[in-house]
Each structure stands twice: as C-alpha cells, then as structure tokens.
C-alpha cells in the first residue's frame, strides 16, 4: 500500500523512513521491464534467425531452378525442356509472395556479382523476365533515402536501362548517397549518361566519385567516349576538372587551345590538371602561356609549370629559367628551376655546394694521373673559351695562374709574383680584347658590340655558345678558384721594402750567383709560375706577341732597381728575368742572422757562464755587427758584483758609488736615467763611476756622464769653500748646532723626491719601477 508523499515525515536529524512496500513495487516493475526486454530480444532474434533460415532455405530452393535457367540449352533433351517449363511455372507462382520475390532478387543480385560471361547475361535476362525490376521502381519512389538508394543500385546492377529516365532525376538530389548512386547509374546505364551527367550536375564531384565513374566508363564494353573538351567551358569547376582528367585518360588532344587557356584558370586544381594535359600531349605552343602564368602561380603550380617547361622547353627557354634562378627565393622552386635548366640543357649548372676545392685533394702525392688530368682539363678550359665563348658582360677574366717555385738563382720570388700579377693583368686585358674580337666575328651587330662597354648590360642574361656551355661553367668555377689562389699566392704584404743600395751599371749578365744573398727562400712557387705561364704560352692561351709586347724593363725600372736588363726580341722575357734581372739589397746572410739570434738569446737569458761562447763568437766572426754585439755582452757578463769587503776597500773606487751595481746591470735607457739621477743626488763617491763611464761607454752615455760629473764637481767646489773657512776657526768657535747651508736647502726644496740619500734611493727605485712598467 502506497503512502501519500505528504505523510512521509522526513527528519533532518534522523534518517528518512522508507516504505518497504514501495521498494518492492519498484523491484517488481524493473523485473517486469527486464523480462519484457529479454523476451523482445529473444523474439526479434528468433524472427531474424527464422527469416535467415527461411531465406537460406529459399535460396537453396531457388538455386537449382536458377541453375536450370542459367544453363538451359536448346540442345537439351525433351525431358529437360519439360522440366525447364515446369520450373518457369513454379517460379512464377513462387514470386507472387513478396518474401519469395525478395529472396529471388537477392539470389540473383548475389550471383550477378559472382558470375561473368554468358551466365551473367542470362541472369540479367531472367531478372527482367520475372519482372523483378518493378520492385526496384517502387523502391525508387520510396521516401526513405536508403530504400531509394538500394533501388537505384539494384537497377544499376541488373542493367535495367529502361530505368535511366527515372534515375537521372536524382543526379542533383540533396542526399549525397542517392546523388552518387544516381551518378553512377546514369553513367552506367547508357552511353550518353556521362554527357547528361556532365551537362547537368551542379554539385561537387568528389575525387573518389570521379574514380568510380572512371572505373564505370573503363569497364563499359564497346564504349566510345565523347569529346570531353566540350565540358571545359562548364561553369562547374568540378566538371571542368573531371573533363580534363577524362581528356587525359582518353588522350583526346584535340582541345589544345582550350587546355592552354585553362592555364589561366583561377582554380589551382584545374591549372595543375591542364599542365598535366599539356605535358602529356606535348603542347609546345603552351610554353608562352606557361611562362606568362608562372609569375602569379602558387608554389605547386610553379613547380608543375617548371616541370612542363622541362618536358617541352628548348634552349630558347633557358634565359627565362636563368632569370628565375636569380629571382626565385623559394628553396624548392629554385631547385626545380635548376633541375629544369639541366633537363633542357644537361649539366648546365654544375653542383657547387659542399664541393671541396681541388687543393684539398692535392695533399695526396701519389695520384699523379689525377694531377695530369686536372692540368689537362684546366689547360683545355683555357684554350676553349677564347675561341668559343662570347663574353657579353664585363665580367672579370682570370687566366690560369701560377704557383711560385724556388728561385734557384737567388731572385727574390716575391718580385716574381708581382711580375706575374702584372702579366696576368695584361693577359686579362688581352683576353678581353680577344673576346671583343670574337664578338665581332659573330652575327651580333658590330655597333652593339663596340658600344657594349658604354651600356649597362648587367640586366641581360649571359649569352654563351650553345655547344660550349659546359666549358663556360667550368671556366667560371676555375676563375673563382684561381682568383682565390692568386689572392693567396700573391699577397706580398709580408715582404720588406726592397731598395737598391748598390747601383748596378754593368750588364746584369756579369753578376755571379755569389753576389746575391737571399734573405729568405719561398717555396717552389716561382718555377711553377713560370711553368704554368710557359704552358699557357705554348698553348697560345697567352699569345706570345702579347707577352713580348709587355715592357719588362719598365716593370723592373718601376722598382727603382736601376738595373740594366737586356730584353731581346727573341728572348723569352721570363728567361731574361730569371737570369739577368738583379734585385739587390743589403740583406744579412743567413749565418750571420743565426748568430745574431743566438746573441740576442744569450743577452736575454744568459749570464757569465756564456762568456766562453761569446769570446768564441767575437773571435771567429767577421761581421762587425756580430762582433760589436758579442763584445757588449762580454762586458755585461764580465762584471762581477764585488763582495762587501771589496766594496768598502779603498782599492775599489767604483764600489764607493751605490749606483755602480745598478749601472752595470742596466740597459742603455736605464743607464741614462741613472746618470740623470747621479747628477741630481750624486756626490764625490760617484766621481770614479762617472769617470769610468766616460772612458768606456758609448757617446750618449759619455755625454750624460760628463755633464753629471761636471755638475757634481761644481757642487763640491761650492761646499768646499766654507769648510776651508771653518778649518781656520778654533775648535771652541765651532757652532755645533746643525744647520744646512743655503745651497743644500735650495737643493732639498727643489727636489721633490726628498732630501736624504734614502729618499733619493727610494725615488730612484720608484722611477725605475715606473720605467719598467712603461
């Protein structure tokens, strides 16, 4: 019994009371619902199973009948024919039942998929004979889209072409499944179906749908495709695109101008498809439009256009591509441009990125053949361009240059480098002149050529002879390498300024090798220079006349060498330079240089233990410079610091001065400072030191020492006079109060470094310290 809700008391403190009867009622309700559910599932499942079994049984029942129909032959026996007629009657009776009709339809549709050939045709005929297609018509009229769709599929599968008129209504159906089935049906059922479809479809044709339609067309027996170019003007872009694909598939190349026009279509897919068609049909006339469209095309289209140009293009399209190579910034497109260039003109552009220089491989000494090949190639490179390349731009031409080798005759290699550089400049000028001459010989207007230097032609692409483009590329690479090589080889900043000390008036040939004393030796560069240039001369790369025309004497004269060089008309100028040219300088011989280096090292690091070797050097050497330096060092290291007892003995007069030790261990500049200090603070103790300096030291020190000595002596005379007066006084008249005389006070006042000897020494050490620290 249910309790009304208003009688249920709910306390906020105690748990609410719940009527158990109410709970039981709920349990029973859910149990009943569960039972109903399970019964429903069971019943439905049973029905499905029953239907399946019935269908299966029916199929088994229909199967032999269908077999009889399918494989009936006129040649059969009378019994078989009678059996066939009985079966026909039976089956017509059976199909009066809707279920049986559906099963039979299902069987025929299944078998249609598995059978081909004559059996298939018989099967379709049987389907129509039994009037099963009328059921499909009914399905088409259904409101349910899935039923409509299945009806269309059934009619399409059984090839009921009478249904064509019904199905075409669905090609613009809003339900995509119906629409797609209708499209396939229309195309499948009749040959003109594709035309109707292309004419009337307003919807998008998906890629997958296009493939299915194409598959339908492909499998249609004896199919004659229409001219799909008719639909290139369609307002439906998908129709245009599909038409282009059909044109390509059926190779209908009669619509050249229409396809070319489609290159300008706003739709990228159509553009791409048109390009594909142009490429497939090899429409060369499309090249102009392709180039026109290129500038405003998307990246994908640009690449497609370049691909098409690569297929169709000729050498005439190379300037366009070269321009693109310079202007294009997108990596992929630029790569494609280069690829296209090389496709049109194989190996026009050689790989340049991450390629090691030839020098990198020259470290392997055993690969002589490789060297020879390289040389041959480089020589041929030098030879070829002079004859064939038309140099339009004012690009710098750099000829094969040189490695300076050992100048065994003592000629300064650096000078040779300088000369080679000058020769190269001359040769470049000659090459340019020769190039201009070559241009004259071509079909280019002479006036244009002569004025070519006056006009800025940088905007123009480089024009090369068609057959020589590979060599031109190689030459350009070689030029770059050689330019770098020249920069490295001929940098002569390190060289000393060479001036002539001995004017040479006699002919150069009279000089002997001994008269030239090279300061340093360079590598085997000079002979290589010579060799390469000689090779160039032999190969007529540098015309002999051009070299002979060089004013060698003026080149040398510019170096202020005052040398007389005899350059005969028949004489190779390099030979004359090698044998006769003299570059005189008073360079120190290597042996003397080594000795000087040794002496400087001894001066810096040595002590009195090096005296023996210093004496040896002084005795054995003839060079004045070496002897002088050795004697200096001997003097320096010969001085021994006196012992304290010796220092204060009367015999060691030098020891009286506190400056003696410092002076003997100091360098020239320090000595000058010391002398200055002695002058300021010295007294009679420094007189002996100053006198010894005057006797032995150099002119500057002597001068300073003399000045200091005179000053000290004058000071001593001033101070001696009052002393003589005091001597005359009696002992008791002596003023014991310490009082400095005026001169001393003045000296102290004028001297910032202090008044006492200690102060003076401190200031001296400070000045020395300051000097040392700069």
């Amino acid at each position, binding site marked *: 019994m249910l309790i009304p809700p208003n009688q249920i008391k709910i306390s906020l403190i105690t748990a609410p009371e719940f009527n158990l009867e109410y709970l039981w009622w709920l349990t029973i309700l859910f149990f009943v619902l569960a039972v109903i559910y399970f019964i429903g599932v069971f019943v439905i499942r049973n029905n499905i199973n029953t239907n399946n079994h019935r269908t299966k049984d029916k*199929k*088994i029942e229909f199967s032999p009948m*269908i*077999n009889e129909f*399918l494989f009936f032959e006129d040649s059969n026996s009378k019994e078989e024919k009678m059996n066939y007629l009985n079966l026909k009657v039976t089956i017509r009776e059976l199909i009066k039942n809707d279920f049986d009709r559906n099963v039979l339809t299902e069987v025929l549709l*299944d078998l249609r998929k*598995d059978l081909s*050939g*004559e059996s*298939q045709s018989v099967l379709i005929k049987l389907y129509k004979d039994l009037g099963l297609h009328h059921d499909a018509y009914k399905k088409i009229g259904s409101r349910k889209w899935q039923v409509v769709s299945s009806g269309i599929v059934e009619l399409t599968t059984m090839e009921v072409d009478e249904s064509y008129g019904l199905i075409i209504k669905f090609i613009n159906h809003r339900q995509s499944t119906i629409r797609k089935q209708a499209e396939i049906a229309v195309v499948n059922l009749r040959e003109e179906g594709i035309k109707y479809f292309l004419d009337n479809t307003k919807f998008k044709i998906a890629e997958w749908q296009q493939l299915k339609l194409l598959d339908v067309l492909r499998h249609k027996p004896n199919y004659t495709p229409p001219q799909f170019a008719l639909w290139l003007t369609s307002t439906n872009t998908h129709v245009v695109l599909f038409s282009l694909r059909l044109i390509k598939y059926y190779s209908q190349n009669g619509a050249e101008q229409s396809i070319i026009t489609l290159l300008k279509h706003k739709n990228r897919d159509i553009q791409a498809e048109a390009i594909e068609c142009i490429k497939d049909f090899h429409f060369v006339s499309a090249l102009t439009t392709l180039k026109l469209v290129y500038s405003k095309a998307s990246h994908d289209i640009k690449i497609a256009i370049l691909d098409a140009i690569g297929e169709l293009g000729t050498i005439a399209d190379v300037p366009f591509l070269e321009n693109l190579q310079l202007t294009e910034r997108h990596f992929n497109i630029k790569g494609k441009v280069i690829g296209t260039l090389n496709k049109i003109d194989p190996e026009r552009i050689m790989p340049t990125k991450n390629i090691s220089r030839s020098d990198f491989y020259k470290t392997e000494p055993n690969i002589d053949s490789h060297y020879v090949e390289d040389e041959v190639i480089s020589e041929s490179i030098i030879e070829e361009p002079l004859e064939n390349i038309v140099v339009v731009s004012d690009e710098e031409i750099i000829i094969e240059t040189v490695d300076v080798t050992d100048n065994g005759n003592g000629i300064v290699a650096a000078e040779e480098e300088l000369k080679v550089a000058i020769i190269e400049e001359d040769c470049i000028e000659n090459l340019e002149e020769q190039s201009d001459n070559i241009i004259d010989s071509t079909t280019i207007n002479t006036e244009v050529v002569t004025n070519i230097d006056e006009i800025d032609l940088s905007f123009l692409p480089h024009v090369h002879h068609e057959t020589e483009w590979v060599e031109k590329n190689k030459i350009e690479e070689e030029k770059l390498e050689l330019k770098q090589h020249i920069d490295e080889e001929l940098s002569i900043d390190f060289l000393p300024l060479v001036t002539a000390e001995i004017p040479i008036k006699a002919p150069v040939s009279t000089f002997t090798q001994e008269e030239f004393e090279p300061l340093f030796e360079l590598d085997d560069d000079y002979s290589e220079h010579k060799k390469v240039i000689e090779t160039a001369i032999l190969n007529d790369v540098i015309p002999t006349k051009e070299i002979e025309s060089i004013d060698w004497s003026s080149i040398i004269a510019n170096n202020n060498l005052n040398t007389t060089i005899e350059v005969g008309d028949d004489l190779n100028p390099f030979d004359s330079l090698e044998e006769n040219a003299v570059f005189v300088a008073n360079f120190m011989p290597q042996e003397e240089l080594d000795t000087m280096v040794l002496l400087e090292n001894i001066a810096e690091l040595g002590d009195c233990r090096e005296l023996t070797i210093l004496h040896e050097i002084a005795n054995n050497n003839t060079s004045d410079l070496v002897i002088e330096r050795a004697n200096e060092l001997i003097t320096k290291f010969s001085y021994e610091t006196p012992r304290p007892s010796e220092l204060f003995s009367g015999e060691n007069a030098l020891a009286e001065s506190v400056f003696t030790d410092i002076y003997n261990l100091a360098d020239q500049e320090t000595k000058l400072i010391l002398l200055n200090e002695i002058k300021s603070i010295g007294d009679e103790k420094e007189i002996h030191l100053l006198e010894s300096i005057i006797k032995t030291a150099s002119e500057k020190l002597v001068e300073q020492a003399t000045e200091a000595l005179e000053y000290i002596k004058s000071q001593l005379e001033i101070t001696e006079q009052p002393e003589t007066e005091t001597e005359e006084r009696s002992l008791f008249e002596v003023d014991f109060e310490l009082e400095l005389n005026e001169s001393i006070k003045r000296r102290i006042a004028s001297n910032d470094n202090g008044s006492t000897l200690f102060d003076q020494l401190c200031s001296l050490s400070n000045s020395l310290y300051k000097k040392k620290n700069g």
Partner: protein
Amino acid sequence: MSKTVLLADDDQLLASLLNFRLKKGGYVVHHSANGKEVKEYLKNSMPDIIVSDIMMPYCSGIELIDYVRNELKSNTPIIIISSAGNEQNVLTAFELGANDFITKPVSPTELLVRIAREVEK
C-alpha cells in the same frame, strides 16, 4: 570413367551453380563448405582435381594447397578461386603449387574449360 572434382566453397549459391555446371559437364563433384570437411575428404580419397575458394572457414585455400602438396604429398591439380585478385595471394598460391588461379566474377563455362585442361594434363 568420369573425373572427380572436389569443390571447396563456403558460398552455397555459387557452389551450387558450379556444382550444377560441372555435373552437367560430366564431372563427379564433391562439395565441401569448409576446410575441415575438405581435409576429412582428402584423408579418405583423392579427387582428380580440386577447385577451392581462397577464403574458407577453418582452412583457407592457401593452407589447403600446402596441406595437399606437403602433407599429403599429392600432385593433384588445384584451381584457386578468389574474389580479390590480390597479387600476393596469387603469387603465394602459385609458389605453394597451385595449378591455376581464377578471380571472381567467374564464368562457369570458362572454369569448366580450365578444369578440363588441368585434368587432361
């Protein structure tokens, strides 16, 4: 004496149709709907030719070829019918020793000719 054909196919309709056609063509046809039945049959008797679908319950057509060639050591001609003309299936079938390969849709007449050719070999 008429030749025996073992027809192994789980599709009842097609099997029935082919069975009908083969019988009409003069062959004695034994139909098996799955691999188990086929193996049971082959243990007891060897037909003159085997026509098998590639997709069958318990034992595929490929496994059947392997069974016949390697376990039964029989050179009985085998024709494989497949709904999918998968290249890999075709190659595998021929590698294992299939004599012929037909893809659906099948023309029963054509099959009959092929069977006749294989049997005559």
